[in-house]
Each structure stands twice: as C-alpha cells, then as structure tokens.
C-alpha cells in the first residue's frame, strides 16, 4: 500500500517535471531522410570531410620560427578536451569575455602563434573550426550561462524574438513555434547549432554558423549583421544553450 502511494507520488512528480521542461532539443539530423543521415555518418562519404582534412593541415602547419597549433595540442589535436570544445561559446576568465570557438582559435592564432589577424569567418578559420569541433563529434553540448555571460544570453534571446525585415518574422516563429511544420516543401527544424560548420548540398560547401544566420536574414528580407558581430555572437550563444544535451555532429550534412 505504502509503496504504491509512493509510486503514484513519484509518477506525478515525474510528469510535472516533464511538463515544466521546454521542448526537447532535436537535431536537424532527425529531420533528414535515412539516406542523407547515412551520408553524414559515413566518414568516407561525408562531403564535409575534405574541410576537416584541410583544417587539420592548417593545424599542423608552421612557418619558420612559428609554433603550429599541433605543437601545443598534439599532432591530431588529441590533447584538446572534447567536453571543453562542446562548451563553446564560453566565458573566458583570461579575456574577461565570451569567446565563440572560432574566436578562441583566433586568440591562439594571434597571441600564442603571433600570426597576422584574420577576419571572422576567414576560410582558414572556418576550416580550423570544422576540424577542431569534429574532434568532439558525439560529445554532449554543454554551454553554460554564468553571471559574466548572462547579459550576452539575454541580448541573444531578445534578437531571437525580434521581428526582422519585410517578412517581419522572428527566429522563434520558424524554429520554435512552427518546428516540424512544412513551409512549402521545406520542413522547419529547430535551427540548432550542433552540426556547425555544416556541409550544405544547396551550395556544395561548408557553411559557418554566421553565414547560415545571414541566409535566414535574407529570407526575412532583412539586412544581415556582420559575421563576428556582437549580435551574431549573442545569437550563437543563445542557440548554443538551446542546443544543450544534443551531440556535436560537425561536419553535419544539411540542405
């Protein structure tokens, strides 16, 4: 008798907990057909792999007098912490700001390797980012909001729920409210970031996250922000938190 009462209590508490939770994060992967999923999963077929390969070459390169990335992080990057890679954008104590993974890589590029600065989304940086994040394939994403990064998170949320452009729609409309629904032949996903940089069949290239944001802005007939802008970083951080619990899929394969 006592045990069944406890059981009922437990079931009630458990279901309350489920109801209180936001919608379960779902990867864009789950919206793809089985055949496309198989391409993403196959190391040899995945068309994003040449970019990973290019990134790993840049990772090992050094000109005279310079250190290569590999000299600190291991020839194949094996000395990097996968859990940490899966936690970006993350607050950096040393820099007193949130870095995206690409910015973190660039910080090594300029500070540790003393190289000439590159623009955000420079093809070299995108290749490096693709390589580094691919090392954490399968690791669960865990982006943390703390007292230093709360303001950026809130800025991201505001942008995510702001109407943009002539379409006057928000990211939230398409990727939360109408996820899973068809918009003239295209099924809307949650717009998660766990696969980025992703290979896109439409453009036959690897696309950075900020470039993907640009495309949604163009769709909205809105003026995009710049790659690496404060606004895109805030969006990346906010969606990063939404992606918590999903696994890193880089290089994912999408349309």
């Amino acid at each position, binding site marked *: 008798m006592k045990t069944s009462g406890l059981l009922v209590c437990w079931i009630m508490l458990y279901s309350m907990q489920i109801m209180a939770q936001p919608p379960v994060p779902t990867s864009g992967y789950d919206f793809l057909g089985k055949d496309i999923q198989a391409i993403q999963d196959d190391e040899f077929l995945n068309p994003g792999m040449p970019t990973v390969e290019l990134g790993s070459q840049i990772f090992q390169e050094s000109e005279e007098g310079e250190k290569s990335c590999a000299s600190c992080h291991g020839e194949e990057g094996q000395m990097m912490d996968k859990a940490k890679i899966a936690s970006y954008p993350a607050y950096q104590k040393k820099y007193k700001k949130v870095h995206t993974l690409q910015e973190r890589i660039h910080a090594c590029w300029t500070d540790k390797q003393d190289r000439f600065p590159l623009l955000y989304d420079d093809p070299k940086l995108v290749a490096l980012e693709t390589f580094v994040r691919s090392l954490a394939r399968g690791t669960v994403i865990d982006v943390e909001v703390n007292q230093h990064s709360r303001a950026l998170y809130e800025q991201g949320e505001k942008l995510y729920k702001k109407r943009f452009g002539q379409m*006057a729609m928000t990211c939230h409309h398409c990727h939360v409210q109408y996820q899973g*629904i068809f918009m003239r032949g295209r099924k809307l996903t949650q717009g998660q970031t766990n696969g980025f940089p992703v290979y896109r069949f439409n453009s036959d290239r690897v696309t950075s996250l900020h470039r993907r944001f640009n495309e949604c802005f163009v769709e909205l*007939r809105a003026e995009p922000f710049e790659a690496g802008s404060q606004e895109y970083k805030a969006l990346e951080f906010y969606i990063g938190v939404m992606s918590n619990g999903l696994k890193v899929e880089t290089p994912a394969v999408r349309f």
Partner: protein
Amino acid sequence: MGQNIIFFSALLVSVYLALSQNVLADSYCQWDLAKENNFPAIEKPLCDLKGDAQRGKKIAIDRGLGNCLACHAMPIPEEDFHGQIGPALYDVAKRYSEAQLRARMVDAKLVNPQSIMPGFYQHPDKHHRLAFRYEGKTFLSAQHIEDIIAYLLTLKGQQ
C-alpha cells in the same frame, strides 16, 4: 575645382534624396481602418484600384510575390507543397467580407498582433532592419493586394 565637385555631388545627393522620398510618399496609398462587426476592416480599395482574380491567383503562387502557398493550403491542386503554417483558405470568402480580407492582407497584425503573416502592404518605415534593396517598398503593390482579394473572394469552398 575639387571643392566644386564635392559641392555638386552633395547637391545631386540631396536632390536625389528629396525626390526619392517624394516618390515613396506619393506611391503609398493611405487607407482607413474601420470596424465591421467588431472586426478590423478596410472598406475602400487601395488607391481605388480594381482587382483581377486570375492575376491574384498567380500572385498567390509566385514565390517572389505573395507566396501564400508557403503557409496556406489553397484550391490550387496543380501546385505541390502547400504550407501548413496558416489555416487552409478553401472557403475564406464565406467567412470574411472583402473589407475584412483587405485589412488582413494590408497587415495581418491589425487583426492579430501576434500574427506571423507578413504585412503585405505595411508601411515600409515600420519594418526593422529592412534589407537595403527593399527600402521604401511594400511587400506587394496596391494592385497586387487588390488582385489577391479578388481571387480570395472566389474561394467559397465549392471545390
């Protein structure tokens, strides 16, 4: 000499700006919002234009114009992939009057402030971060709107 050129181009720019603003002010037709049985309504056709249902149907299909099919199912079986975001429109003319449809088409947010349906004839100044190439432009022209309304008025659910 150099100063002259700068002065001259500044003059050109300001004349251009003045003209382009005039064009916008002239081409955007004002409308009056009324209530019909407590429902937002715009009685008079935009710019007093007359709509054409055949053209309206084409605009509803066209991905670069209305693209209504992105979000609505309509009695247009020859087109694949009707959207599922908004309600199906097979019998809208039974449910709404012409004036009510006009308010909905000009700016769905007049009817439902939360609506995600684009304001097809919303004033261009009311958009946030409008892409430069659409500056000063409405989503559809007044003629487009009247054409679509003419088409919607044929949808009485008989199909």
